[in-house]
């Protein structure tokens, strides 16, 4: 008797993304009972403005994690990029916004390139490199800034007003410009990851680095590229950070790296590489933000309970993912290889590599 195979278009990634949407919906329903005026345009605005930074970072992190690496320096990149861009904007209030955004992206890409060089060409494990650069970038910022803070009123108004600019408004519900732009960027990148060659190659490297290298893939260049992309996106997040808060101190962005990893993980990205989608990471960031912001508004939950509940919920989300994911992965793999019949007496799973990496 063979395991019934699922149709090919129901890929595990889609299932994961759909299940995330489902979990978000369930959370919204539950909190709707606990919080007054929950379903308001106001709350939607809160979520969309606060999630953009973590979402961009989650996507950045995913690009690196699928190659079986990690980037713990994203928080420091955000800080450096936000601070330097703020300094620039304060000193050149008439400069074009495009230039300012480009500066942020460029700084991020440069810092990401350093990471990429050390990981891909220096062959130093990513966790070591990025633990080091986390500290090095931050300490550079501290000494560069000399304890000066960028204040909101020194910035040109287009920067400070950016978070509230809307594309379209439906009643009190705004579709904010930054949110819209970020969603578009993520959609484009996600499409690239799934359909373009470089995207699929990143997944290949993460699933099995040795095989990828033997198959002739330019692994080092691709991993380097992933880190540069991650850095550039972190730089963008730094710009968004500057626009949102206005006041940038030397500790800006500290701790964001953990948020980005948590969002990616909740979004179904495996830390072992080779699986997970950018859309999943975006949804993961949204889920965590919805949970965080909702818990703050539940009057019975004191702020001291929030972290504990958040930790438990993250764990629950991941366990659910593993439980659901395994089941569908097996069926999908069976269908993808029509010549392999999965019968009871079949010794091995059709995708042993995937299973072993889960164990």
């Amino acid at each position: 008797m063979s395991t019934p195979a699922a149709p090919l278009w129901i890929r595990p990634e889609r299932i994961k993304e759909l299940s995330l949407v489902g979990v978000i919906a369930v959370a919204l329903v539950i909190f709707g009972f606990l919080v007054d005026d929950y379903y308001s345009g106001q709350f939607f605005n809160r979520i969309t403005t606060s999630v953009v930074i973590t979402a961009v970072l989650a996507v950045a992190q995913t690009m690196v994690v699928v190659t079986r690496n990690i980037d713990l320096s994203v928080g420091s990149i955000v800080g450096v990029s936000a601070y330097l861009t703020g300094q620039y904007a304060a000193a050149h209030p008439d400069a074009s916004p495009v230039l300012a955004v480009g500066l942020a992206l460029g700084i991020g890409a440069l810092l990401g390139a350093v990471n990429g060089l050390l990981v891909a060409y220096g062959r130093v494990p990513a966790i070591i490199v990025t633990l080091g650069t986390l500290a090095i970038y931050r300490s550079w910022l501290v000494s560069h800034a000399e304890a000066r803070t960028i204040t909101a009123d020194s910035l040109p108004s287009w920067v400070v007003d950016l978070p509230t600019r809307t594309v379209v408004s439906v009643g009190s519900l705004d579709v904010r410009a930054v949110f819209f732009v970020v969603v578009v960027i993520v959609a484009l990148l996600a499409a690239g990851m799934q359909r373009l060659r470089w995207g699929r190659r990143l997944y290949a490297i993460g699933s099995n680095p040795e095989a990828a290298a033997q198959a002739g893939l330019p692994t080092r260049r691709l991993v380097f590229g992933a880190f540069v992309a991650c850095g550039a996106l972190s730089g963008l997040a730094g710009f968004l950070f500057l626009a949102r808060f206005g006041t940038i101190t030397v500790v800006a962005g500290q701790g964001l790296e953990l948020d980005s990893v948590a969002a990616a993980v909740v979004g179904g990205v495996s830390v072992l590489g080779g699986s997970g989608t950018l859309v999943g990471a975006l949804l993961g960031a949204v889920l965590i933000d919805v949970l965080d912001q909702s818990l703050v508004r539940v009057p019975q939950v004191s702020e001291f309970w929030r972290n504990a509940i958040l930790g438990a919920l993250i764990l629950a989300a991941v366990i659910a993912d593993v439980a659901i994911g395994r089941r569908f992965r097996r069926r999908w793999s069976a269908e993808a290889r029509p010549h392999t019949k999965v019968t009871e007496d079949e010794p091995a799973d059709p995708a042993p590599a995937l299973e072993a990496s889960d164990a």
Partner: protein
Amino acid sequence: MVRAHKLLAVLTCLALAAAACGDDDDSTSTDDDSGSEAGGAGEAVTIEGGDSMSSILLPKCTGIAVFDQANEGAQEAAEELGADAPEFLGPSTCEDPTGQIETMTNAATQGVDAVMISNNAGEQIQSGVDAATDSDVAVVSWDSPIPSGEGESLFVAQVDFDETGVVMADMALEIMGEDGGQFAVLSASPDAANQNAWIAALEEALTDEKYANLELVDTVYGNDDADESYNQALALVDSNPDIELIMAPTTVGIAAAGKAMTDEGLCDRVKVSGLGLPDEMREYTESGCAPQFALWSFVDLGYLTYYATYGIATGQMEAAEGQTFTAGRMGEYTIEKDPTRDSGLRVVMGPFTVYTVDNIDE
């Protein structure tokens, strides 16, 4: 393989031996005995320069403008007195108190003459303070005191803490009007001795008849982090939709709350007040979002703290109740017992300035 092992063991022992055979002399303090005499308690003393003094100015954390201003004041004072400029050292984040403890303990090893600390570590700073006083380092606190008062020579208070409560209550009354209403407090770190004292004073002040219509509904903590404070301010409004005012006795909190209310277009409903820096608050005051807020001069606070510390470390004055001293351009001050703590001495610096749209440009 055995030889390599032994080589390593020898090298390691060498490193440890170097430590054990090291010099045992304690570094000597460079202060002590100058021309001027120590004034007895009660005898007015004018602090004069001439002696060197090595010192550390230890704020709650770096990256906050008011502490930079305090540093300015301290540097100014050091220049006037002809002493070494104080080292401005502080942890990079206000959330972790262990950085202050480390700096305090290192100061003891370095043998500096004095440490001037704005305490962010609550009672935990005590181990560092004890280590410092064991090594004859003078410990003077400013802005935020050492709760037990032990080991601390003096606390230079910017204002009377109880008065702060009244000032905040008065501003709240003026902003919300006679009918009063609900308001909430956005503070810094739950550890911060000064903010906690001010909030307690505010609650105490509110019991007076005059403020009967004012209701304090919630207190939240932003940890002097712009992110956190911003989010907390918005959450306050969402959870307590009837509040009319956010009172933030922290310059980071008030600026973040001002931005949050402005960003979300809430300024009509919810005003912002508390302790803020004119530079950071200007646009919110001019827009009407923060019609009133108060502060004192941090530059003056740093200046006065340095003078007082210098006087104590050079032996020119005693850190005792009743001691009067003149601190440069700031004039005369008298040390008194600190009524807001169980034990400890303090010197109260000076007046509040309440900023409104009229005087904000000064």
